[in-house]
């Protein structure tokens, strides 16, 4: 893992001191709210419905046991005993007091964490594949590039007041687990014909009220040119991006209005002027950052192949969990484990302080001290020996952390919605809970197969509904919550934006509607190997629409005759 150097330590300490002073001046009345608001936002402090919210950055979703313990401690001491892991691989506390922020940030700094650039019109926390450095299909670990970008973008003087926020995601494999094509910049690690590392560069993806899939503007960017090229993109955006209308200020709108080719040319022109500047990354610097992310010295644990097989045979629930929640590791004696934060009927992404402590303890003992946060709001143990899987499972079960639903319909992404968020128009969490309960039968979930269901409580799309195989968008209509369904979205290497299927459904109707969609899929799929997305792409919306709305008409006719 990356460790702070002296510069990082001093920089974060200075920011804690600066913000502590700003908080004190706000509380004394020396600063007005108008003056203070942009300052608190730059430090990750929002005001939500019930309280302030603090968003803590977890760069590329990687954290140590010590850091997870600290997050638990803060939840217990300064909040209400829990935290919410987000689609940005961050953690949000829902109830911290402003007067406690200096203490919280000082505690975070003790473990090399902070809340900088988790808000505001700047380059946000860089996200990456949660199986980085582990996945058997990976070309190279995306985290060294992510860390280089983190260092470059932290209080970057030129890019601290962009037209709008700016998000970068990096994947190290052809299979995209980081949703790079719905980011402002998406980077995919590739190798060229000479075996050199570089990136495919996508630009202008995003969700929100105008969802767009990113456009590829470069097939191969040499790794030493990473900062020069990203600077070129940011420079074009900073200069040409719209500032007159916040809803048209993201780079996706600029790409759309300029056209991909014209934007690409503008970026390449800027890049030509920068490529041989001090932004060119020295080979030694790249390799030095890379060394922080090298695989731990994993012990050979070949005996695990036999013990795992025996344990799976003896316990079908454990076998199902291994099948669903673990993936192949580079080292054959290990697997990467997804710890589901989606118990049936639970709140997606929430973890109590006790659960966080348990996860930290397990990581310390069994996962080489490392955890990850996935953008799908789960926790990953990257290195669990086959021989230890049963012990880990047995620890997770009583803590309600062993639901074997990774990638299934109850592994729902949901934003905090109107239960917490000041921007939301409708609740997300109760909708997720009801759907999860409706599909509680694990065998039924496995029969349905891979299905990504994503829920947002407003058009800002923090719950990624646009790229859900099934997406749900909560809106407010005439003072009531209404839920629109989109189908056919995807955030993988074949990214697509879901299509709105028709009129929305009330809170009491949406679970039935989702079940109807799922049953329609099951009735129409070619076979069990054709997953929901593949079936939808083959069938189109017609059969789903037909049944959904025919049923609604029948229901209203029945109701009107009663």
């Amino acid at each position, binding site marked *: 893992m990356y460790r702070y150097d002296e510069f990082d330590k001093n920089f974060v300490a200075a920011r804690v001191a600066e913000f502590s002073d700003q908080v004190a001046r706000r*509380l004394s009345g020396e600063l007005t*709210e108008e003056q203070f608001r942009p300052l608190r936002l730059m430090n990750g402090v929002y*005001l939500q419905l019930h309280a302030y919210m603090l968003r803590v950055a977890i760069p590329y979703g990687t954290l140590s046991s010590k850091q997870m313990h600290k997050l638990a401690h803060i939840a217990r001491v300064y909040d209400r*005993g829990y935290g919410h892991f987000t689609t940005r691989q961050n953690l949000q506390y829902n109830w911290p007091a402003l007067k406690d922020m200096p203490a919280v940030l000082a505690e975070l700094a003790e473990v090399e964490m902070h809340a900088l650039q988790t808000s505001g019109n700047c380059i946000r926390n860089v996200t990456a594949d949660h199986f980085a450095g582990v996945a058997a299909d990976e070309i190279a670990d995306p985290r060294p590039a992510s860390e280089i970008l983190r260092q470059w973008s932290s209080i970057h003087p030129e890019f601290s007041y962009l037209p709008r926020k700016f998000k970068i995601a990096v994947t190290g494999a052809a299979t995209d687990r980081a949703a790079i094509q719905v980011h402002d910049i998406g980077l995919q690690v590739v190798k060229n014909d000479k075996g050199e590392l570089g990136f495919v560069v996508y630009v202008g993806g995003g969700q929100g009220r105008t969802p767009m899939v990113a456009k590829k503007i470069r097939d191969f960017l040499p790794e030493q040119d990473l900062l020069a090229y990203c600077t070129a993109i940011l420079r074009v955006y900073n200069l040409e991006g719209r500032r007159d209308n916040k809803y048209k200020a993201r780079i996706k709108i600029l790409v759309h209005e300029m056209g991909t080719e014209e934007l690409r040319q503008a970026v390449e022109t800027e890049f030509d002027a920068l490529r041989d500047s001090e932004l060119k990354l020295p080979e030694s610097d790249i390799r030095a950052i890379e060394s922080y992310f090298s695989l731990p010295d994993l012990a050979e644990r070949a005996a695990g192949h036999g013990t795992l097989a025996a344990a799976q045979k003896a316990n079908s629930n454990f076998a199902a969990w291994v099948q669903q929640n673990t993936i192949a590791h580079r080292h054959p004696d290990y697997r990467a484990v997804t710890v589901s934060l989606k118990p049936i009927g639970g709140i997606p992404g929430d973890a109590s302080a006790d659960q966080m*402590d348990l996860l930290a303890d397990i990581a310390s003992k069994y996962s080489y001290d490392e955890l990850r946060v996935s953008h799908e709001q789960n926790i990953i143990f990257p290195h669990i020996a086959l021989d230890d899987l049963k012990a880990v499972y047995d620890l997770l079960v009583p803590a309600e952390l062993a639901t074997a639903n990774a990638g299934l319909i109850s592994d729902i992404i949901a934003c905090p919605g109107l239960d917490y968020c000041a921007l939301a128009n409708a*609740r997300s969490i109760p909708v997720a809970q009801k759907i999860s309960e409706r599909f509680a039968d694990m065998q039924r979930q496995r029969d349905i197969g891979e299905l990504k269901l994503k829920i947002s409580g407003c058009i800002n799309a923090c719950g990624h509904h646009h790229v859900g195989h099934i997406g749900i968008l909560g809106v407010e209509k005439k003072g009531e919550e209404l839920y629109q369904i989109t189908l056919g979205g995807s955030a993988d290497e074949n990214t697509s934006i879901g299509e709105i299927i028709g009129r929305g459904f009330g809170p009491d109707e949406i679970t039935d509607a989702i079940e109807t969609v799922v049953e329609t899929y099951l009735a129409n799929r070619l076979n069990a190997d054709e997953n929901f997305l593949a079936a939808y792409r083959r069938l189109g919306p017609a059969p789903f629409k037909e049944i959904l709305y025919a049923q609604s008409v029948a229901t209203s006719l029945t109701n009107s005759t009663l």
Partner: protein
Amino acid sequence: MKVLTANRLTDGEAQFYSSSGWVGEFQKSEVADTAEAESRLATIGALAYANNEVIDVNLIDVVRKDGKLHALRLRERIRAEGPTIEYVGKSAAWGI
């Protein structure tokens, strides 16, 4: 009918203006049912904001139902009553 609401500066918690000042209980809110009363509450809110007691000050629409105050918008009902979900993680004696 309107009541005056805001978030307390020090901890951000939702507050409602009552006859005894700012309180956390929505049902204790002072109700304005005339233009003059609304104007008075608005002045109180502006003053409290200027004095750095509260932020995000708003007058919200309410009705009385069965003798109880009821915010018209769901957003305000949730603000008044808290999240509609059980949110505190279950504590238990797990561990290694």
